């Protein structure tokens, strides 16, 4: 019953990887060999049917189970946009070696095998040799998993609890479920899976290729997840069940003596190709796959080519069999005394080659979320960048109606016309692109790659150069408008956001939403970057002291100054000051052409102006309209009054009093105009009679009559009328209604669900103990506990009682509100990793860095304790073991020494680092703040090794 050819080839394959190495990687890096190679010893009665026990377990269905509608819902709830079977976050716990490159896996390895042996026991190439296995396998990488390892994946996940209502994981019970002891501890020998082939049968015309050959095409949503459906079904376990006690019992009743897996009678219906000659099976075939595709559809060697499969007649001639009642009945009719209903059975195993409606992406609401606008040079059309719908909506200004909607790409954020109005440029923040649209045809002409997360866009006065602010790359792409190629990239500060050109066209002012890095526990220092348009270079970097979230900007028509929006976050004082209206203040700044800066607040004693988002100056220079996305209002600033007030003041007042004076706005804010939810972009019509405000969370434009200073119309951009729970949560997130005197919203500290880059003292002690770095909310659902001290087990806890205690000081969110907010926060997606696009191989430096990340020995050969290896505390897929650890970073101001192990996904995008934000760069974590090797053993590393490690970290 042994297939010597297959076995020989498998061992050859298994032996090969021992010396396999990827480019630039030293020899003897362990590689994954796959379940089939393990099976060579760990199957059959002598091995306690270990393979069969695994195959019958949920682990073997780990990958396949991701096809289910529930999996899709979990992914959606977690802000995962991809198919679960392609998402790293899902595959990390539902498959083996998801994060490895092709060279780290042998041909015998299949991701589709789900959670295989090597998930728990480590890549097998170095220890599968019989001699090694018998003597010292642990020294060659064999891992005997413990609770810690299991809990990396089995720790409670909010997303799974919410959708599956799964019970709390019981480790002991789970161990019993998957127990697969070798019989009496018997010494393993290569006793491959018995086969159903016949020594006497003559070779047939067609060969059995095995289920993985079929799975190469017949998986994924476009093929109705056929492979996964089979793998989840009983057919896939047909062989494995023969090795279970139940299998033995039934076999005995059928008169089979001994191991059912060696019984031709059992194998006839519990395997594929039973009775065929050994030559009828290719190396890829695995009897362990039970009743697989070819059991019903016939051996596939000749018809499995795509070209043949697409031609039904050719496929039939090549051996593809039509499945009907006669196919099933020989095995199922009266099998083991059970009734068999053909029609019902066919429903159960149905796997049509078409998109299963259950697996289609749910038809969730597609809101518009308008952010920024641009008015055509002739003033007739308004182009609105709509982040959620991936479109630009065109509004006819006269009729105030939406007249077109143009697909742009992922998360369009800003929009600008060229001077003659023939083209529109749109930044796609998700795709890192700039799209060029022909305004006549409304067609996309070109898509140009730019830097990470492009936000603001503008052309120079002549329209020759396009400036794009790369928010996540801290740079400005300068693109030739004729060739549409990037000519150069200028350096911005942190998070360049919006830009505006001076009336004479000589300067462009670009805001930066994040403060520069500042020394520990010192005030923010933001920057407005001034570009000389003649030479397209940075001319000046104007510092806006103690400000952050500097976002909106518009030049005054007089050309002597520009206005910006800003926050003045008092992050250095404890949050107890909240009651005194002193946590986050909001206002505007005056950026004078000569580099001077004035700051004034728009907050008033009893009513703040949370999240000043954008500013526009009327064409006659009389008014500046400022949007408050946190309070759904526009502040009307009388510019003359503002400037007069400043000019009449002493330098001391301008520098030290006005920036914090909540009594001053009444001297220059002449009115507040109500808008719809979360107003962001604002602009005036060419004649200055009308202003338009983009209501991001209402999918509308508010039209303001500038003469009357009143909102006179609402332009509907056509978003869904229904407000989903997530959308409701999004509104709550962006609203300051809950906070004392409406000082700030969740968005104030977590703009766009991310970070504001500064450190807070949130605790109520009032003495500045335990300052902590702000952390991103992107993709955090399953990374509990929360807070740096790890004291909040859930988002509900984080946003509910904690919020009430520390932030709001008034009524907390209602349960309904809290649930909606929690839902929204869960779904804040993590942007695609910019350092390793999906499917891309690692660069040589990243590959070397991965070895450092996973290393077990120091450069001088000392074993690194398990608890002091990178991968121990930061295991995939989230790169956190969700524990609290003391890594030696406790400082005088800290009350705890153990801190939550942060996840590392997109870690490059959330500086500063460590619990108190004291490390400005990833390098500093180890060069400055790990003197005693408590945060991983790193002090033996050379500088190039550290560089490699960081290159790898940036890919996670």
């Amino acid at each position: 019953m042994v297939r010597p050819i297959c076995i020989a080839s498998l061992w050859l394959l298994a032996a090969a990887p021992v010396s396999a190495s990827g480019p630039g990687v030293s020899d003897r890096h362990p590689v994954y060999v796959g379940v089939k190679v393990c099976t060579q010893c760990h199957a059959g009665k002598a091995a306690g049917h270990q393979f069969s026990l695994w195959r019958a377990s949920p682990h073997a269905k780990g990958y396949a189970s991701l096809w289910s509608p529930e999996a899709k819902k979990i992914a959606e709830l977690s802000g995962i946009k991809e198919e679960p079977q392609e998402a790293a976050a899902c595959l990390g716990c539902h498959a083996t070696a998801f994060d490895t490159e092709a060279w780290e896996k042998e041909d015998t390895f299949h991701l589709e095998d789900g959670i295989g042996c090597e998930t728990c026991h480590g890549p097998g190439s170095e220890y599968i040799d019989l001699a090694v296995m018998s003597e010292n396998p642990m020294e060659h990488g064999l891992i005997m998993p413990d609770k810690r390892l299991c809990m990396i994946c089995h720790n409670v996940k909010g997303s799974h609890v919410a959708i599956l209502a799964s019970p709390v994981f019981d480790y002991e019970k789970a161990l019993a479920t998957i127990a697969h002891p070798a019989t009496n501890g018997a010494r393993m020998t290569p006793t491959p899976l018995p086969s159903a082939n016949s020594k006497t049968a003559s070779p047939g015309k067609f060969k059995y290729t095995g289920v993985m050959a079929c799975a190469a095409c017949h998986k994924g949503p476009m093929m109705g997840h056929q492979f996964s459906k089979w793998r989840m079904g009983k057919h896939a376990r047909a062989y494995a069940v023969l090795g279970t006690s139940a299998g033995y019992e039934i076999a005995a009743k059928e008169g089979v003596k001994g191991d059912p897996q060696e019984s031709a009678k059992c194998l006839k219906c519990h395997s594929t190709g039973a009775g065929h000659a050994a030559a009828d099976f290719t190396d890829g075939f695995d009897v362990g796959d039970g009743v697989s595709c070819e059991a019903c559809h016939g051996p596939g060697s000749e018809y499995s080519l795509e070209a043949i499969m697409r031609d039904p007649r050719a496929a039939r001639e090549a051996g593809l069999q039509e499945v009907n009642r006669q196919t099933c009945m020989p095995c199922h009719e009266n099998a083991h005394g059970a009734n068999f209903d053909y029609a019902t059975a066919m429903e159960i195993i149905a796997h049509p080659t078409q998109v299963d409606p259950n697996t289609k992406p749910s038809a969730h609401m597609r809101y518009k979320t308008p952010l920024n606008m641009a008015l055509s040079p002739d003033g007739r059309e308004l182009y609105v960048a709509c982040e959620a719908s991936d479109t630009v909506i065109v509004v006819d200004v006269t009729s105030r109606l939406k007249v077109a909607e143009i697909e742009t790409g992922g998360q369009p954020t800003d929009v600008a016309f060229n001077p003659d109005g023939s083209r529109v440029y749109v930044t796609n923040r998700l795709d890192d692109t700039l799209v060029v649209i022909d305004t006549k045809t409304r067609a996309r002409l070109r898509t140009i790659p730019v830097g990470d997360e492009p936000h603001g866009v503008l052309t120079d006065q002549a329209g020759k150069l396009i400036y794009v602010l790369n928010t996540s790359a801290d740079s400005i792409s300068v693109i030739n408008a004729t060739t549409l190629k990037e000519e150069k990239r200028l350096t911005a500060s942190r998070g360049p956001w919006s830009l505006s050109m001076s009336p004479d066209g000589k300067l462009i002012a670009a805001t930066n939403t994040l403060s520069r890095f500042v020394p520990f526990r010192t005030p923010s220092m933001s920057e407005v970057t001034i570009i000389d348009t003649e030479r397209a270079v940075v001319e000046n970097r104007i510092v806006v002291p103690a400000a952050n979230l500097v976002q909106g900007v518009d030049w005054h028509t007089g050309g002597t100054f520009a206005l910006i929006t800003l926050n003045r976050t008092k992050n250095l004082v404890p949050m107890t000051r909240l009651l005194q209206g002193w946590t986050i203040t909001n206002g505007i700044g005056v950026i004078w052409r000569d580099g001077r800066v004035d700051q004034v607040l728009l907050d008033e004693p009893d009513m703040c102006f949370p999240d000043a988002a954008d500013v526009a100056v009327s064409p006659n220079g009389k008014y500046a309209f400022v949007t408050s996305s946190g309070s759904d209002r526009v502040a009307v600033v009388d510019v003359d009054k503002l400037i007069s007030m400043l000019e009449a003041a002493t330098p001391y007042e301008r520098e030290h009093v006005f920036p914090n004076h909540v009594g001053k706005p009444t001297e220059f804010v002449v009115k507040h105009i109500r808008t719809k939810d979360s107003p962001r972009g604002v602009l005036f019509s060419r004649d200055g009679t009308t202003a338009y405000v983009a209501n991001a969370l209402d999918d509308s434009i508010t039209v303001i009559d500038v003469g009357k200073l009143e909102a006179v119309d609402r332009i509907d951009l056509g978003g869904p009328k229904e407000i989903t729970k997530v959308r409701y949560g999004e509104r709550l997130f962006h609203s300051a209604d809950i906070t004392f005197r409406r000082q700030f919203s969740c968005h104030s500290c977590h703009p766009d669900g991310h970070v504001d880059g500064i450190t807070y003292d949130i605790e109520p002690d009032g003495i500045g103990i335990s300052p902590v770095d702000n952390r991103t909310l992107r993709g955090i659902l399953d990374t509990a506990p929360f807070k740096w001290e790890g004291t909040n087990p859930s988002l509900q806890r984080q946003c509910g009682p904690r919020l009430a205690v520390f932030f709001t000081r008034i009524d907390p969110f209602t349960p309904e509100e809290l649930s909606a907010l929690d839902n929204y926060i869960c779904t804040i997606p993590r942007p695609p990793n910019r350092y390793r696009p999906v499917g891309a191989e690692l660069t040589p430096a990243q590959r070397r860095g991965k070895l450092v990340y996973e290393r077990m020995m120091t450069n001088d050969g000392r074993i690194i304790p398990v608890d002091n290896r990178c991968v121990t505390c930061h295991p995939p897929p989230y790169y956190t073991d969700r524990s609290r650890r003391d890594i030696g970073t406790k400082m005088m101001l800290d009350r705890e020494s153990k801190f939550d192990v942060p996840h590392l996904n997109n870690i490059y995008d959330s500086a500063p680092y460590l619990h108190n934000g004291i490390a400005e760069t990833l390098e500093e974590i180890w060069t400055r703040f790990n003197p005693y090797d408590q945060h991983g053993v790193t002090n033996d590393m050379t500088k190039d090794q550290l560089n490699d490690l960081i290159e790898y970290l940036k890919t996670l």
Partner: protein
Amino acid sequence: MASSAYCRRLEAVLFAGLLLAATPAARGSEKSEKVAAGDSPAQSVPDKQKQIATEASNMPFVYTKWEQFTTKDGLPNDHIFAVKVFGDYVWVGTEDGLARLNKKTREIKCWREEDGLPWRVVGAIDVHPKTDEVWLGLFGGGLARFSGGRFDHWHQLNSGLVNDVVYGVAIEHDNVWAATTAGASRYNTVTGEWSIFTEKNAPMEEIWNYGVCYADGLVYLGVWGSGVLEYNVERGTWKDYLDPDGEMEIDLYRDDGIMHVITTGVSYVDQTLWAASYFGVGRYDGRHWRCFFAHESGLPSDFTNAVKGRSAHEAWFATDKGLGVLADFGTDTWVTYTSDHDAHKGKAVVQRGEKIIAEFETMLNLPHNYVLWVEFDGDDAWIGTSKGLGHAIGECYFPRLRNEKQIAQAIRDAIIFRDATLHRDATVREPVANAEMQNSE
């Protein structure tokens, strides 16, 4: 006009030089028989004599008009380690600060540590040609970028820079190369990736990098103990140029490679590599090396701190005993500049090989004979020394050699051009004429 008068005086000087060179006395010793290497080695003796006579009638341009800048003029320090000209500005790296000299207004603006400069010693400067960003190699302080009035700082603790002792800096596309005492670093300003080149991944037996330059897709590193290393940017490959004589401080087998593996500076221009060492200098045209030593050329000293190639034919060498200018490689014609500070005057010696063919006494030219850096600025040059910044004004400059007629024509052309320029831009300030020229006779 002053400039026209200046050029006419120069014309007179050079004519006098030609006459001087034509006399047997001026040809001097037996050294005058030497023919420039590399030119027609198979010529007969009569041919050689004819060639010598012809060459003697050709003269290089001699910088006779100089000005000096020191702390008295506003520089932060007189130890000038690096000079970079970009647009209207001359950026000057000193032992205690960075200075920017506005060529039009003569205004000097300084930055010291208290002004935000991250480290006091600025040892190297390069400017990104597209963004105007000034990159500084800080001797002991890492790397800095000056943009829009703000300094950004990278060092070995907060970045992937291999070492803080930075000797050289060069811009290559979006990359910034830093030559450091522990290897070379390359920083990609777009991706943020740092690469380190040491003995692990480059033919760098020693890792003490003294200098770096980039041109035409090639990065050259001058390495203390590893000669010159060439990095092909497109291919990502290395090539080394080592001294075949090992570490001998003489050129045992003539022109077989670089002079010595202790390389102090590199410069690549017109597909020609110029290399400096503490034991002489060399030139490589892609096929042949040619080395030069003080005892047989116009090189003031073998101890060379830096080199800057102006073309395939001309290179300036910063030595501890003055400035050596190989004005025309083909004829081995040199001009050697030195100053006598006690006498407050300077000297320019024209030499063909080891043969002196003319000497010009000038007023002070180099601020000091210990020369550390050379930077070209069109026809001008800026010289960093241990006691200030020198400015060699190249009015009527011509490359290589000119005979009597050509010089006259060149000077006439230059005068016409300059007059036209002055007429167009009346605000252009006349260079300070601080050196009276005198015929050595």
